[in-house]
């Protein structure tokens, strides 16, 4: 026990900080229905801003902290409340893409402004030592634990004992009723966002001295809060606090138990996501309420191309894609990568756009295909077969992801797949079943026939696969399954009411989408000659969703545009500024697209008049005139 005490002390401290972040997250989720994936990036931003005030401007730390809480906490909270307001009634895809976009954008801004290297940040709280049962404890740790406990208890009392607090809880259930009580529901939401945002800011600044200023790591650590929030079933603040503490202490104790063993080295940092995933898998779904405002914004159907427009697109597209490798010179591999991403986006589009299911783990699926394909090549299986097997092995893994999809709807599915992606990357990528070994990469050669192993030759290989994949998606959309998927996206209840088992529909779309993702993964490695886990980082999965939402709703054209934006265009420049801010543009773009209708601004403008007509017609027909009542009475 003695040996464990120092670890437990550290665990209690970090656990407190996770708990603080998690409580803020749950509070905003409860009151607005928006699950803020950018919560961690928000915390990281606060840490950097605090450091600017304190170290760069030389302000005393309490002043720096106050300014940080005002700038990042209060102002940030107000901005987030505006965002949440604009997202209310939007589709789950749009709501997820918005905060994921914010996460991607914020994190990249931090890297662009402050650099990607980890900076140290000196402690600001007193670091003197005292002893508990022979274990040295810093006063700073004590302050953190007491401060967080105080804040959480304070918030709990505020929510349950004050008028505004009770209103804050009621606003979720019925904003109109709160309005009748003379309290403005918008004001209540504003309070919630400010508190949540300040808690995030505080957690970032409290974590930074121990682990250093690093946008990536700080963001990731606050993701630990997701696990804590899951323990509280995304509703209960006290349980969330307990969850944060348990995860903090648990991770440290595991560190001590595994004692440097490399086999389990990833276990402490994956604990929160294991917790998250397991809670989402076992919690009865009635406890996981979909929090959304009653009024759902009408979905705009994808603008249908006329056959003539299709012919024009093909007439331009076919010659351009055939000639392309001969005119772009050394950039040809860039375009090949672009084609791989066309397949990825087409498969993700099938899932997100056509069927309305969210996956934040798409790159993990592609990684399975990539590793399998490379292993097959290593075993002497010819190239086309190896790619196909890669897809076939990925498909049942996709079925695994579909299990949460069957149990969970909407935002909880997004959270579960997020956890799945992180877990797969940390627990599986490095093992012998996937990339394995020291370097986390495998040789993946191109097919050695007919000159297909040259850059230009391989471009054509991937082109054929991309065209086949797109054709496959078009065929699926036209088949009965395509109709069922669109029905699933619009109203699963209606599909259910007509006798279709929607669990099967969900399973099918995940399997098909994963198959395509696996094919894309398999084709990715040979571009550079190595299948490497580095290509399949979970953060890319997040960017995929953001860019897909940005690129609109066309089943084929949108994936092509998205792939071009993500994988080709940015690399036509060496300008560091542009490279740094590409992801920022994607993140912000997705956020804007999600807030203003989940579609590109141009399509929005085209759709605006139609929406107006629709609203007018609804209003005209929706009101039951009093004459009905009168007639009834005369009965």
């Amino acid at each position, binding site marked *: 026990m003695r040996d464990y005490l120092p670890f437990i002390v550290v665990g209690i401290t970090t656990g407190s900080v996770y708990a603080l972040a998690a409580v803020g997250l749950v509070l905003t989720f409860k009151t607005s229905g928006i699950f803020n994936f950018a919560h961690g990036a928000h915390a990281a931003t606060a840490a950097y801003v605090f450091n600017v005030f304190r170290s760069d401007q030389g302000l005393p730390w309490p002043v720096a902290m106050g300014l940080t809480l005002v700038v990042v906490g209060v102002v940030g909270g107000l901005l987030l409340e505006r965002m949440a307001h604009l997202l209310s009634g939007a589709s789950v895809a749009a709501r997820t893409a918005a905060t994921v976009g914010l996460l991607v954008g914020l994190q990249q801004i931090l890297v662009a402004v402050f650099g990607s290297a980890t900076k140290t940040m000196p402690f600001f709280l007193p670091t003197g030592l005292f002893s508990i049962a022979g274990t040295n404890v810093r006063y700073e740790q004590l302050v953190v634990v007491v401060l967080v406990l105080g804040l959480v208890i304070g918030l709990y009392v505020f929510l349950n004992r004050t008028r505004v607090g009770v209103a804050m809880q009621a606003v979720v259930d019925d904003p109109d009723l709160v309005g009748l009580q003379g309290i403005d529901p918008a004001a209540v939401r504003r309070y919630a966002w400010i508190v949540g945002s300040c808690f995030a800011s505080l957690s970032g600044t409290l974590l930074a001295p121990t682990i250093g200023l690093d946008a990536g790591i700080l963001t990731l650590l606050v993701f630990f809060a997701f696990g804590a929030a899951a323990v509280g079933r995304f509703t209960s603040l006290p349980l969330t606090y307990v969850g944060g503490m348990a995860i903090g202490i648990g991770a440290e104790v595991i560190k001590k138990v595994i004692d440097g063993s490399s086999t389990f080295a990833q276990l402490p940092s994956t604990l929160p996501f294991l917790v998250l995933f397991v809670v989402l898998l076992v919690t009865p779904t009635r406890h996981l309420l979909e929090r959304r405002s009653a009024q759902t914004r009408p979905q705009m159907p*994808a603008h249908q191309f006329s056959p003539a427009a299709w012919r024009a697109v093909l007439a331009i597209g076919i010659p351009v894609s055939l000639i392309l490798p001969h005119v772009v010179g050394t950039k040809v591999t860039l375009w090949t990568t672009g084609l791989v991403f066309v397949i990825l986006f087409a498969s993700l589009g099938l899932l997100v756009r056509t069927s309305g299911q969210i996956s934040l783990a798409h790159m993990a699926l592609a990684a399975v295909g990539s590793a399998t394909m490379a292993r097959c090549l290593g075993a002497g299986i010819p190239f086309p077969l190896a790619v196909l097997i890669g897809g076939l092995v990925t498909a049942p893994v996709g079925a695994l992801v579909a299990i949460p999809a069957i149990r969970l709807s909407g935002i909880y599915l997004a959270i579960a797949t997020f956890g799945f992606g992180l877990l797969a990357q940390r627990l599986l990528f490095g093992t012998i079943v996937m990339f394995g070994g020291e370097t986390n990469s495998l040789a993946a050669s191109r097919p050695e026939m007919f000159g297909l192993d040259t850059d230009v030759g391989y471009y054509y290989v991937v082109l054929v696969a991309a065209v086949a994949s797109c054709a496959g998606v078009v065929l699926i959309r036209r088949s*009965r*399954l395509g109709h*069922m998927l669109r029905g699933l996206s619009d109203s699963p209840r209606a599909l259910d*009411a007509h006798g*279709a088992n929607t669990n099967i529909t969900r399973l099918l779309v995940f399997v098909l989408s994963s198959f395509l993702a696996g094919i894309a993964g398999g084709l990715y490695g040979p571009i550079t000659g190595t299948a490497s886990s580095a290509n399949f980082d979970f953060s890319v999965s997040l960017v995929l969703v953001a860019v897909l939402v940005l690129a609109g709703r066309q089943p084929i054209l949108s994936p092509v545009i998205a792939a071009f934006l993500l994988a080709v265009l940015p690399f036509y420049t060496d300008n560091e500024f542009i490279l740094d801010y590409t992801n920022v543009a994607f993140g912000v773009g997705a956020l804007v697209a999600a807030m203003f209708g989940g579609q590109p601004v141009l399509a929005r403008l085209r759709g605006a008049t139609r929406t107006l007509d*629709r609203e007018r017609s609804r209003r005209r027909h929706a009101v039951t005139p009093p004459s009905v009542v009168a007639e009834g009475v005369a*009965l």
Partner: protein
Amino acid sequence: MTAILTEPVGPSLEIDDLTVRFGGLVAVDGVSLVARGGTITGLIGPNGAGKTTTFNACTGIVQPTEGEIRFGGRRIDRMSSARRAQIGLGRTFQRMELWETMTVRENVQLGREAVHGGRRPWGQVRSSAAERADVRERADRALDRCGIRELEDAVAGDLSTGQGRLVELARAIAAGFPFLLLDEPSSGLDPKESAEFGEILAEVADRDGIGILLVEHDMTLVRACCTYIYVLEFGQLIHEGEAEAVLASDAVKTAYLGSEA
């Protein structure tokens, strides 16, 4: 093959001594009723009488505390909602559940396609030529029956409430359900639309032999189409009989509309 594709038209819905309790609250108290195939049965009553709870027990949203519900002689009260649809019990929603990004024709056709898809994975993936012809033909007939042929290319999300109700009905008719549960289809309709909707319902029952249980608040619609009516109050059945007689009875007027009527 699901039963709905083979079973002859005309099964009845029987509710036998249904009781539903929510904690200490008895929402439905020993209600028994029979809604015959091929006729329209009305279930009326003031707000809070237990109409919606009874309806929800039929669709599977709430579980009966006591009693049972049978359809075509089979117990359905423990079946999933998809399963109930597969044996031929269709429904519409009070808050419309259209496939909003799809056209009216696509909505109506998918109503039938979902039936074909059912529980079979392969059946959900692709359709045979015969099935496609069946889907088109049934959709045509349903669109005509509901008088919305000219709307077939409109996007469902663009429709007025009145038109949307007709699309929901057409979708359920195209699906081939021998029996439909309709949950306050008149809400959001004006009296003229309600009356028209009632005429269409009457035709659906007469010509297509489809049985309907209509849970309704609005007298215009009930009067326009129901042949037999059950009246609920405070969770209990207080009156039943032929439509004319029930609507004229003093007991119903008092219970349903208050004593001043």
